[in-house]
């Protein structure tokens, strides 16, 4: 591995000072002169016809400046064009989930806006909703979208269906594979609807100027995606919408879509004044895209010596009433990520994405992968028990390596799965076994492949030799810091001499959405290219002054120096000073552009030690360790932080978080009743960073943020099994459920000969 001076170092985050002093500005902190406050009227029903929608009384209330409904939307598609993302912003004749916007108000203060909502008269004719995902798949189920046919089928369906996406992956002969097996196990696993739980509720401030140009400050994970949405909603060309990024108070995939910015834009256009909306926590819970629930049936076959012979799986994901923005999250990634860690010669996976009359689901940290891993890794644990084999030994025996075939049929590039398992085994060997009553250790593995997308980077060299990196990617995980580290490394300048800014949609080069663990990977090639561009320009100025050829200069210590003769140098400051003179030298700006490149496979191995109180059913997580192949950690502190945060989210998903619905309306929409882990619920999370370089990425990086949540659900379930002998196949594993199972036993696991 090359020696780096800034890459791989634990430098402090560039945004930390502003955040610890309260100076960082989030959407709700933006205050403009003469600003109005907006509120949304959300549908209280999961499925209903709107017979009458009368906003006249609301419009007449003193202090109300505008009330909008679907009739006011310039760019809105017709209802028959369902499903389209616009339906999420204001609906016309029908509501298909509780929490769908019906009208919006702008008033001189939030209290009047709220009063105005109460004056809006809506006569709903309630229709039968379909809430349960398996019910929704039946042929006679009420349809969420009347003209939606299952996509991706070999032949077109004869009639519309709530199943909107079908996916099949298969290889080999599954029946023969099961015949070859000595043990075959089939089980069904269920996961619940959970929420991202970001601490900052959604917020937007939008101002439309007299020319009709729209300026948006909002918390989206992608400024360019948001610009497109607002432009489409407002029926404007893209150069009439500018999105200015703000700090984002947590996202995890949950801020890759928007409702409030388009509504604020229309209200601002109507009133000629800036409009601000800040959601309440209840609104976030009830109307924002939660995480798809799942029902997964999995059958695995294994020989006596622990070799997997066949797998068949049916995966059903509850997507709610719409799929996501841009259509990316239509793909049920779990259908191929779940079984990807293992060499299984014969497999068949069928996956269904299904509409129900619930709030549309959205992507959450490795979307749909943790659900699939819960099934696969629980089942692997059961098989290891049946084989009386160490669970990590069993996985190692079946683990994929470079050249093995992925579920999708493509070969794996270099991967660090076996290395990661071995690293965890060494760690556990040092730590020793867990002995004691009611104690249990659980192990699980996970796979995820961070993506990458199109992005650009500009670097401006200042007259004193410091530099500014301008990117269009929103920082949701510390990417300003890691990108600054890359610039400092490449240019040979101190980290402190690099400032990084996420520009707005008019000043920054395009960047893909900050999602998919892909920003550091997607920006690394253009940042490197921009650095090279800067170096080329500086070399051309420096080489003649140093009296050497272009190829004989190098960049280090803030200088351009002669290779082999570091005492012969010109500082960057001396080279750049002329920019500020009059008449001056031409500015120095480096540019880098890149389209996306290949997915980088990441493997994670996690271990939890738990204690289960058999009187109360309460699970205490005593310790938790995550090992992950990160390729290379640009900043180990940031990588650890991502892993620890993902694990805590996984513990919440496994043990306590649950959106409870009645007729499609979430009943526990507060942070008291929707129970996320507190500091008292989670232990320190030990992290083991494995660095098996990924050659397709600059510096060998693989992407970090999403993968560590993938094994966490099964890790906890497997630990509870160890502690209690009880196998839980449905989340969340609350004390009530555990106690009930300890008392009444009865596993639903079917062991077949």
């Amino acid at each position: 591995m090359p020696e780096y001076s800034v890459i791989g170092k634990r430098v402090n985050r560039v945004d930390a000072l502003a955040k610890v002093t309260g100076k960082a500005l989030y959407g709700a902190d933006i205050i403009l002169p003469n600003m109005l406050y907006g509120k949304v009227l959300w549908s209280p029903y999961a499925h209903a016809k709107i017979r009458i929608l009368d906003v006249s009384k609301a419009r007449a209330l003193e202090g109300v400046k505008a009330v909008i409904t679907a009739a006011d939307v310039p760019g809105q598609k017709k209802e028959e064009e369902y499903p389209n993302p616009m339906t999420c912003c204001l609906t016309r004749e029908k509501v298909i989930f509780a929490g769908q916007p019906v009208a919006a108000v702008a008033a001189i203060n939030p209290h009047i806006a709220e009063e105005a909502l109460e004056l809006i008269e809506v006569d709903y004719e309630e229709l039968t909703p379909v809430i349960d995902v398996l019910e929704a798949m039946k042929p006679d189920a009420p349809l969420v979208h009347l003209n939606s046919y299952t996509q991706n089928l070999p032949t077109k369906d004869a009639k519309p269906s709530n199943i909107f996406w079908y996916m099949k992956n298969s290889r080999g002969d599954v029946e023969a594979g099961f015949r070859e097996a000595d043990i075959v196990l089939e089980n069904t696993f269920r996961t619940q609807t959970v929420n991202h739980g970001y601490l900052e509720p959604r917020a937007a401030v939008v101002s439309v100027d007299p020319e009709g140009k729209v300026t948006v400050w909002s918390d989206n994970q992608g400024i360019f995606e948001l610009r497109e949405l607002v432009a489409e909603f407002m029926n404007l060309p893209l150069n009439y919408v500018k999105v200015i990024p703000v700090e984002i108070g947590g996202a995890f995939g949950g801020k890759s879509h928007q409702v409030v910015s388009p509504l604020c834009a229309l209200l601002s256009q109507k009133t000629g004044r800036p409009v601000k909306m800040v959601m309440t926590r209840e609104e976030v819970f009830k109307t924002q895209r939660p995480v798809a629930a799942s029902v997964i049936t999995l059958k695995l076959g294994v020989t006596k010596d622990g070799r997997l012979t066949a797998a068949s799986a049916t995966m059903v994901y509850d997507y709610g009433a719409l799929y996501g923005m841009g259509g990316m999250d239509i793909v049920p990634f779990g259908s191929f990520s779940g079984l990807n860690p293992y060499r299984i010669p014969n497999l068949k996976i069928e996956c269904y994405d299904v509409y129900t009359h619930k709030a549309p689901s959205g992507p959450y940290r490795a979307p749909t992968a943790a659900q699939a891993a819960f099934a696969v890794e629980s089942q692997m644990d059961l098989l290891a028990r049946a084989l009386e084999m160490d669970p990590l030994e069993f996985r190692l025996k079946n683990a994929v390596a470079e050249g093995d075939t992925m579920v999708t049929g493509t070969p794996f590039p270099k991967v660090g799965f076996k290395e990661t398992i071995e690293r965890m085994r060494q760690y556990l060997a040092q730590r020793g076994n867990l002995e004691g009553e009611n104690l249990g250790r659980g192990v699980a593995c996970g796979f995820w492949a961070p993506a990458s997308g199109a992005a650009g980077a500009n670097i401006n060299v200042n007259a004193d030799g410091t530099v500014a990196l301008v990117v269009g990617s929103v920082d949701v995980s510390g990417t300003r810091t890691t990108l600054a580290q890359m610039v400092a490394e490449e240019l040979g300048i101190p980290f402190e001499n690099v400032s990084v800014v996420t520009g707005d949609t008019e000043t920054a080069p395009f960047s893909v959405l900050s999602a998919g663990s892909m920003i550091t990977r997607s920006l690394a090639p253009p940042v490197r290219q921009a650095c090279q561009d800067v170096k080329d320009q500086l070399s051309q100025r420096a080489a003649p002054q140093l009296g050497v050829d272009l190829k004989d200069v190098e960049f280090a210590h803030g200088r351009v120096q002669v290779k082999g003769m570091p005492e012969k140098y010109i500082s960057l400051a001396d080279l750049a000073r002329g920019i500020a003179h009059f008449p001056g030298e031409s500015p120095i700006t480096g540019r880098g552009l890149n389209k996306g490149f290949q997915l980088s496979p990441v493997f994670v191995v996690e271990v939890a030690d738990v204690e289960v109180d058999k009187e109360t059913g309460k699970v205490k997580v005593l310790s938790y360790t995550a090992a992950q192949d990160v390729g290379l950690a640009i900043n180990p502190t940031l990588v650890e932080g991502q892993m620890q945060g993902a694990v805590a989210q996984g513990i919440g998903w496994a043990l306590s978080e649950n959106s409870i619905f009645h007729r499609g309306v979430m009943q526990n929409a507060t942070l008291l009743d929707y129970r996320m882990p507190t500091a008292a619920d989670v232990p320190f999370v030990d992290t083991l960073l494995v660095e098996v370089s990924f050659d397709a990425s600059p510096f060998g990086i693989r992407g970090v943020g999403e993968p560590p949540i993938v094994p966490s659900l099964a890790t906890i379930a497997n630990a509870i099994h160890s502690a209690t002998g009880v196998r839980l196949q449905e989340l969340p594993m609350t004390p009530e459920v555990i106690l009930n199972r300890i008392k009444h036993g009865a596993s639903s696991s079917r062991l077949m000969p």
Partner: protein
Amino acid sequence: MRKLIKLRVNGQEREIMVEPRQTLLDALRYDLGLTGTKEGCGDGNCGSCTVLLDGQAINSCLVFAIELDGQEVTTIEGLYQGGNLHPLQQAFIDEGAVQCGFCTPGMILAAKALLDSNPYPTEAEVRLAIAGNLCRCTGYDKIVRAILKVTAA
């Protein structure tokens, strides 16, 4: 119905006109421009709006400003004075305890209230003291370490 109240905020006397229904949180954010205090839920369940009221950590969304005439409030802005960071602020930076930063102001103030009354807390005491402050990014690991680091110093 509006009433003039006096508050001592971050060491300075401030006078503001408040409505009866106005929370301390809104008074801080909108009347005094102290937007470092964050609103994550508005019903006292997340701790993002934690400030110190006469030295005690409270959820500023749960108290009415009108009731606080003459009292002393410390917000995150009050911990950074004259260019000097409070040791907790420095520890949060150094330990990597800051991610999205939305819980950070409340978390630091909750920790300050703890350390002011108990300068040498155990890990369990730290976790209990910040159990009312939700964080979704960090898993609390580096936050707890940052607080313990200040106690050890």
